[in-house]
Every structure is written in C-alpha cells, then in structure tokens.
C-alpha cells in the first residue's frame, strides 16, 4: 500500500560528505477513502 516516492539527494564537498534521503509525499500516500455503499448485501 505504500506508494511513496523516495528521492535521494547527495551532497558532497571536500570536507564533508552527506547523503540525505528526502521522502516526497502526496496526500494519496496518507489517506484513502473507501466506499462501503452497497456492501450491506455482501455479508
């Protein structure tokens, strides 16, 4: 169900090397509405 889009950003200079992973989220990664209309006949 996880549909995140990780974006990796690498920053390098002569004295320091840093890898930073930034996770890019959209609302659809966080919530999902489910319709239960019509499910009353399922069970």
């Amino acid at each position, binding site marked *: 169900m996880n549909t995140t889009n990780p974006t990796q950003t690498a920053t390098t200079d002569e004295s320091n090397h840093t890898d930073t992973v930034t996770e890019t*989220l*959209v609302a659809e990664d966080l*919530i999902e509405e489910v319709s239960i209309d019509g499910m009353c006949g399922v069970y």
Partner: protein
Amino acid sequence: MMLDLMLDEPWTLSPPVALRPEPFGALAYHFGNRKLTFLKRPELVTVVRSLAGHVDVRSALTDAGIPDAQHPAYLEALRGLAATDMIRPRHQGSREPTR
C-alpha cells in the same frame, strides 16, 4: 489559501469518528455519515489523535516529527479528512490545549 489557514487553526477528531489501529496506520469510521477512510501512515494517526491537544495544526505536525517539507501533503490529507467530517474545526474554549 485554505491550507495555510488550517495550519494555524485548532482542529480535532470529530466525536462520531472511531479510529481502529492497523499495521499500516488506522481505519477511521464515521458513525454519522458512514464514511470509511484509511489513514495510511502511523505518523498521520498520531497527528489526527493529537489535534485536540494542540493550539493549531502546525504544532501537532511539529510535535509528531513531521518534516516541514511534508507539511503540505499532510495538510492536503487533513483537508480530505475534513471534507468528510473526520476532523473538524475546534471552537476556542471547547477543550484546553496542552500547549
């Protein structure tokens, strides 16, 4: 912009909504309108549960450890929850915030 306004407003989980913990986050069910929504991140569940204890949405996001860069996505998700009355604006004085 509505999202920005929401950021500085007090919100809360709606009284007719129940949250059921799930491995991916939680299920939110509204007993009034019978809407069902998956909260697909535990961090979002933390934010939603803690809204009532914060003076605004921004502090709830910050306390939950949500990076600033992700605030827009969380606000959009919260706006989606507001659209189905899963969360609602909290009137001042309805509950004392913790901070």
